[in-house]
């Protein structure tokens, strides 16, 4: 019995076409032109309890629109959604009790008051028992470091702190489903990793179903085995992440600024790396992530030499989609 079932879902927007310039604005005043945009175009899928599903696509692919319909704050144009046995938009408040939501670009925290106040308010909103409340606060402090900014007003938090506070808010009431929409957008690598770690932990210990919408491939790589790729409102791929990578995008690049010297890079080649560019104190390593994974390469580097900065670039989702289209034609 799937926890989420979506059947032939559509969402169309009527978008106002604003004409250019002053005369255009004047014309718009009397004769408005609209165009219909299909944000979600016949989407069907089902998700089992306890799954982590990556919902990936470029900006404007219809990811957020689908999530908003799943959480019940947007009414579908047509099609059916069943979450936990109810249609979300018809029973918004009931649905809201069982889910947690994090939008990377928004916050559900009260802007002018400390994080602690928002959390205690959330406790009343969701009727969280005291024991569970204290337990969760402890977990959030241990893993997310919530205690470091617990009494700070939200407007004074850094982006990473705010995101961690937002995730804490979304999980305080032990929801069945956690929706994450671009939860790591604009965050540095350390905070990103910490958040991913926490999400994985929550999924494992509480069997929380997690839907993660993102355009960052690396988010999904760390978290989910199942991935849905969307573009222009349609699902292009639904299945195993490794299969997807094997078929369309397996090239990764590691760039490192080194403080010392590496004498011999041939060992890397024998490990399966395709290409190495090494000059002075900068090394660029290109490899196929099916043959060798990033952590092996990074471990090798760190063992050999002192590094200042390491960055990993995976194939961007746009490239994967381009290859998908190319493969179809």
């Amino acid at each position, binding site marked *: 019995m799937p926890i989420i079932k979506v059947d032939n879902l559509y969402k169309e927007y009527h978008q106002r076409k604003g004409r250019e310039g002053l005369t255009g604005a004047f014309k718009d005043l009397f004769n408005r032109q609209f165009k219909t945009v299909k944000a979600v175009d016949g989407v069907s899928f089902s998700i089992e309890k306890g799954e982590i599903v990556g919902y990936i696509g470029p900006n404007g692919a219809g990811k957020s629109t689908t999530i908003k319909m799943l959480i019940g704050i947007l*009414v579908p144009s047509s099609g059916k959604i069943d979450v936990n046995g109810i249609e979300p938009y018809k029973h918004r408040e009931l649905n809201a*009790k069982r889910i947690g939501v994090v939008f990377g670009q928004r916050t559900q925290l*009260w802007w*002018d*008051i400390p994080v602690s106040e928002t959390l205690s*308010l959330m406790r009343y909103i969701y009727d969280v028992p005291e024991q569970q409340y204290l337990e969760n606060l402890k977990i959030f402090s241990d893993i997310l470091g919530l205690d470091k900014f617990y009494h700070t007003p939200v407007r004074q938090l850094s982006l990473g702190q705010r995101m961690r506070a937002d995730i804490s808010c979304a999980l305080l009431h032990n929801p069945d489903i956690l929706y994450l*929409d671009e939860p790591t957008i604009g965050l540095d690598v350390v905070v990103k990793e910490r958040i991913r770690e926490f999400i994985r932990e929550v999924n494992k210990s509480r069997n929380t179903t997690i839907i993660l919408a993102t355009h960052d491939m690396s988010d999904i790589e760390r978290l989910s085995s199942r991935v849905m790729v969307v573009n222009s409102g349609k699902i292009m791929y639904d299945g195993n992440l490794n299969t997807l990578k094997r078929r369309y995008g397996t090239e990764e690049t590691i760039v490192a600024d080194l403080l010392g010297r590496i004498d011999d890079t041939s060992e890397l080649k024998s490990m399966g790396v395709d290409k190495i560019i090494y000059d002075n104190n900068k090394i660029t390593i290109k490899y196929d992530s099916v043959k060798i994974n990033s952590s092996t390469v990074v471990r090798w580097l760190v063992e050999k030499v002192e590094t200042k900065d390491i960055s990993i670039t995976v194939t961007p989702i746009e490239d994967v989609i381009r290859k998908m289209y190319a493969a179809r034609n």
Partner: protein
Amino acid sequence: MKKYLKFIQISFNNGLAYRVEYFVGTFRNLVILLVQLAVWKALLTAGPVTTGSGVVTLREMTTYVVISSMIGTLLTVDVIFNMNDRIRNGQIGMDLVKPVNFQTYTFCNMLGQNMFSFLFQLLPILVIGVIFVGIELPSIFNFLLFLVTLINAIVIMFQMNYALGLVAFWYMRGWQSTIVWILNRLFSGRYIPLWFFPPILVTISYFLPLRLMYFVPISIYLGTMAPLDCLYSILQQFAWMLVLYGMTRLMWRAAIKKLVIQGG
């Protein structure tokens, strides 16, 4: 229920974060009040004036002005601004993600704000009014009736603002508050009591809920309204509450269908 009490408390705390803004508002209110008092003093110094509805003395008029500015601190259009902002920038999505009734939530926000205004804006006017201006004090019976009509006025003001706030779902411009502001200044009796209005405007005012916000409570406070008229006015208030309640419910249902959450 507890969560809504908590909303009121948080909204009150929010007021503390913007206390300087409130204090500036207090100062602004006092300045406007002093100007009004000076104008009426100049007008009525020669003696009481006879109007369509009776004789008006200077003391009555100064009392009217002081009470009116006290009520003014509680009847603001902040709800419209707030809703417009939230709808326009999509933050309303985050409100709807919570298992909370949006209208009740908005109402609680306003109550918290009103409590703050009561302490830091209304009370200063009251103190100055009693000590320095020497306003009339009502009979206990009139005062209780005044309180009832005032509480009703706060509810009606909220419902009107809420309805106009919802309009932002269809029209993304903040013109609604300007309309309320203008009508309110004219027909509510906020600055000029309806006693001084030509009959045609008085007649129009009977078809609007605005008269019930300032003019009716203050007239009751002053004891210038006949007992039967008081009763009628209170019944009118309840009628308006019912009408507005039905209207906002219908609007909300339509708005939710139409809802487009702005931005990512």
